[in-house]
């Protein structure tokens, strides 16, 4: 009987090995381990055995059954793995084909530059002040020490709508309005970005509409040297840590003293190139100490308070930063232009 079991085991394992798929395997399982299978048959004949033999053969029969079951399990998982592998191989795709495009626009380069500058000054404790683009002559000029007939009004030919209302020529009226709101109490610490308008013919370097960002700090003990500190921080963050700055005396009606700030050329580092017109320096912005008349007109005591102001043109900065050669590109909105500022 033991021999018979042994033979069955060998036979079954042989068939298991030969099974091609799960179906074959199932058939082998039913054939040998099923209720009508040969092992069951063998066990049915156990009654003829002696009491000593019976448990030995019983144990042996279970052993054979377990071995066959083990082989079956082994083969089943092998066949399953093969089936999965085959399925996967059929599912293989061409990963080199292009992916589905995700729709994503981006900011206009001027907005990108303005946002970068805003964030920089926000981090220095400034807030953003805004005001109307259609302004009164008073805020645009008179409150900024530019009375009617002042020769510097020539410098900025304006779009007047009525005698007293015009498109603002600068964002400085926002400064005048903000100071007025403070009613003579400092500190004031703002920047004011926005669109401004001047009667210029549009060409590669002029635009009748452009942007400005101005800054204003009014407090007790504000010094020109502090202005230098703020501007240096700005220049290094915006144009690189190794930039040097230079202040040159200049003239603006609403500041006294007035300065212009140059930065050392980021292209040639001061050796001279076409960007810096061989001077090694690039003019970036105008600034100065707020003119006492402007402080007084806005209700500040100019004996007690001092302040500084600065103003710059995002177009110019964007042109320098990205190497754009014509200011009209900003306003034509050619999509091929706009798309170039994806991660600006």
């Amino acid at each position, binding site marked *: 009987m033991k021999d018979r079991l042994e033979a069955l085991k060998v036979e079954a394992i042989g068939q298991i090995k030969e099974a091609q798929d799960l179906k074959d395997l199932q058939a082998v399982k039913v054939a040998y381990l099923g209720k009508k299978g040969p092992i069951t048959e063998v066990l049915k004949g156990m009654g003829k055995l002696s009491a000593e033999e019976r448990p030995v053969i019983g144990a042996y029969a279970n052993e054979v059954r377990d071995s066959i079951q083990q082989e079956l399990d082994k083969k089943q998982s092998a066949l399953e793995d093969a089936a999965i592998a085959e399925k996967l191989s059929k599912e293989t795709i061409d990963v080199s084909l292009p992916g589905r495009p995700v729709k994503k626009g981006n900011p206009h380069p001027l907005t990108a530059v303005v946002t970068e500058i805003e964030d920089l000054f926000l981090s220095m404790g400034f807030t953003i002040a805004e005001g109307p683009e259609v302004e009164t002559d008073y805020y645009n000029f008179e409150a900024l020490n530019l009375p009617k007939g002042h020769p510097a009004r020539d410098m900025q030919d304006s779009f007047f709508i009525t005698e007293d209302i015009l498109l603002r020529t600068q964002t400085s009226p926002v400064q005048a309005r903000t100071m007025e709101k403070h009613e003579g109490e400092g500190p004031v610490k703002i920047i004011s970005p926005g669109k401004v308008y001047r009667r210029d013919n549009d060409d590669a370097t002029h635009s009748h509409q452009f942007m400005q960002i101005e800054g204003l700090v009014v407090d007790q003990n504000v010094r020109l040297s502090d202005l230098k*500190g703020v501007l240096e921080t700005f220049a290094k963050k915006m144009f690189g840590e190794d930039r040097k700055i230079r202040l040159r005396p200049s003239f603006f009606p609403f500041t006294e003293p007035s300065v212009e700030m140059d930065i050392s050329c980021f292209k040639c580092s001061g050796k001279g190139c076409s960007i810096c017109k061989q001077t090694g320096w690039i003019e970036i912005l105008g600034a100065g100490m707020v003119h006492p008349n402007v402080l007084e007109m806005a209700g500040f005591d100019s004996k007690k308070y001092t302040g500084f102001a600065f103003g710059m043109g995002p177009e110019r900065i964007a042109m320098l930063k990205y190497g754009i050669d014509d200011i009209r590109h900003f306003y034509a909105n*050619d999509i091929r232009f706009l798309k170039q500022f994806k991660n600006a």
Partner: protein
Amino acid sequence: MLISYNWLKEYVNIEISPSELADKITKSGIEVEMVESLNKGISGVVVGYVEECIQHPNADKLRVCKVDVGQGEVSQIVCGAPNVAQGQKVAVAVPGAVLPGNFKIKKAKLRGEESHGMICSLTELGVDTKLVPKEYATGIFVMPSDAEPGSDALEYLNLNDHVLELGLTPNRADCLNVIGVANEVAAILKQEVKLPNTSINTSEEKAEDFISVQIESLEDNPYYGAMIIRDVKIGPSPLWMQNRLMASGIRPINNIVDITNYVLLEYGQPLHAFDYNRLGSKEIVIRRATEGEHIQTLDDQDRKLKDTHLVITNGKDPIAVAGVMGGATSEVQSDTTNVLLEAAYFASGRVRAASKDLGLRSEASSRYEKGIDRNRVYAAAMRAASLMAELAGGKVAEGIVEAGKREVNTYSVKMDVSRMNNLLGTEITSEQTASIFKRLGFGYKESNGQFEVNVPSRRPDITIEADLIEEVGRIYGYDRIPTTYLLSEARPGGLTKNQAQRRNIRTYLEGAGLYQAVTYALTTPAKSTHFSFSDEKVYPISVAHPMSEERSTLRMSLLPQLLEVLQYNRNRSMEDLAIYEMGSVFINRQEVLKDLPEEYVFVSGAVTGVFNEHLWQGERKTVDFYVLKGILEGLMGELNLSERITYEAGEIENMHPGRTAIVKLDGISVGFVGQLHPALQKDLDVKDTYVFELNATSLLEKETDQIIYQTLPRYPSITRDIALVVDQELPAGDLTTVIQAAGGALLKEVNLFDLYEGDKMEAGKKSLAFSLKYFDPERTLTDEEVVTAHDRVLKSLEERFGAQLRK
């Protein structure tokens, strides 16, 4: 302002190069925009003496000259200039010489005749043709007879000089002349200024016997001085003077006119020379022109005057427009012998009015407009008269015939050294301050750091303490001012909620696939009113003096400009576009603009052509209404406004009447979304285009609910789907509203998931399928509760719309 380096050196000792000087001037306050070398790459040009000049045997227009080019060497040179003649001293480019443009001179044969070099015109030497004296404009330049053959011609012609181009700010009109710049340079270099000699040996005659001067209004003309110079001989001015005029951008005319221009450049004082014999009287009367009065000016133009213009008259007729231009009748001509020299101070407003109205801006008028040094008028007159005596052989009659006050008193301004240091952040001492004032040529008194500075009349820009602080600071050097950081308490910066929300809107729209555009606020009057969705009457705002009709009127909508952008791109073959803009529009409800118009921030978008595309998968979906509506719905979610926004079919000018929705916030219109009217699309030549426009100011001024966390559902929800058959015109939104109302508190979500309008439907009907989700956060719902709510919904739908469940 162009300043000759060599000329400047006559008044102040300069031992540094032109570019070093330029650098120093720029650093201390006056921007030198350019340093230009007058030598435009010339070498090998010498003085030559034309010993012989004969007709070329084979060419009518050529002459063959024997020219002494120095050291006894005589060269044969063929010359084509019509004015070449024997006995002239000329500029010769010898073989091996180089002319501007890297033009190398070689020996050559011209029509069979040897030519060893070239006799040069000034233009060939790089002088602007406009500046070359008229008599030499079409030929070679003839040099003075004392020029030494063989010597460097550039020295004679001052072409080794450099010109500094100053970019002057309006406050520094004092540097619109060489002496003014000399003062500035002297302060920078710690040097003294040497002024020109103005002494004159006057004749026996007295000026007052020849002329009288009368001013009608001292306000228009505070001072007028007239000098008489007799027996002048008109001719060319000396070469050194011509050279300096040319270097400064002025064309030499004749000695008398050149002298007035020269002194104008030197002193900044406009002067005018009249032909005394052609005045037509012996009196000068300065008065306002009468309205419509005529004068023929020097340029032979007939000018019609206004009563805001000031004129010089001979007692009867105008002979000059004050400070602007002389008259033709009294012009100095080649036969002029007696000259009346005018040196006056005219009010800048009068000069500006005439120069603007007549379209005449000259070196003289621009100086009057910017303000001249009142106390230098007399000195300039003396200087010009002495030059007329010296260079034109004139006899200067004694005295100056004057009206008005010759000089005004100067004033002083106080400055406190400690306040200065507080403003600049410096530690400049009183001694340093005093030495700077000395260098600037400012008189002062000082005690304990309190300065009282006497401001010279050439610097009327200095009126307050801050002006003096700037003077000290800039001469001290801004590069020596330390870098410090604000002492004030640190306060957090940050965006306002509105500013942050505007940034969110931009970021969202970019994330949704739209590119940001920035367009002009000025448009045409016609376009300015397009797409208006205001109920009230609005009036376009036009600027008074537009540069063009295209840019004349302020926009009330961003869309016309965005559509221009679409057109611009389409013309460049880019037809699939998605753009948006955020910017101000201007709404005016006043018939006559008295108060500032209303300004709103609008955010608008335009999408045309293909919006979703995946080429190799064959997907190519053009934009439709629901793409834009989806974008807006997402945006409203972003702004926490979804629950309060409704979309209602409506009509907007230039929009498709059946594909436009008015966007309402709490029932009030805040914008619209839809397709452009097909007629407009055709006009613009664009594909189907969908746009939206929202008043961001209105959207963002609403208070939105604070976000409060909702517990996550712990009990299961029950979903019921219904398919309804309704009239085809019935908006789905109406059904949703009724379902929500009828469903009660347990109905948490209603989603439309199918729309069928095909031929399986009865005519005029459509089928809409909704999914309704019921749940209670506190407990598990019973079937009964759901059935009750759901039946309520079905009943309401039937009652309101006759909606039937689809079988």
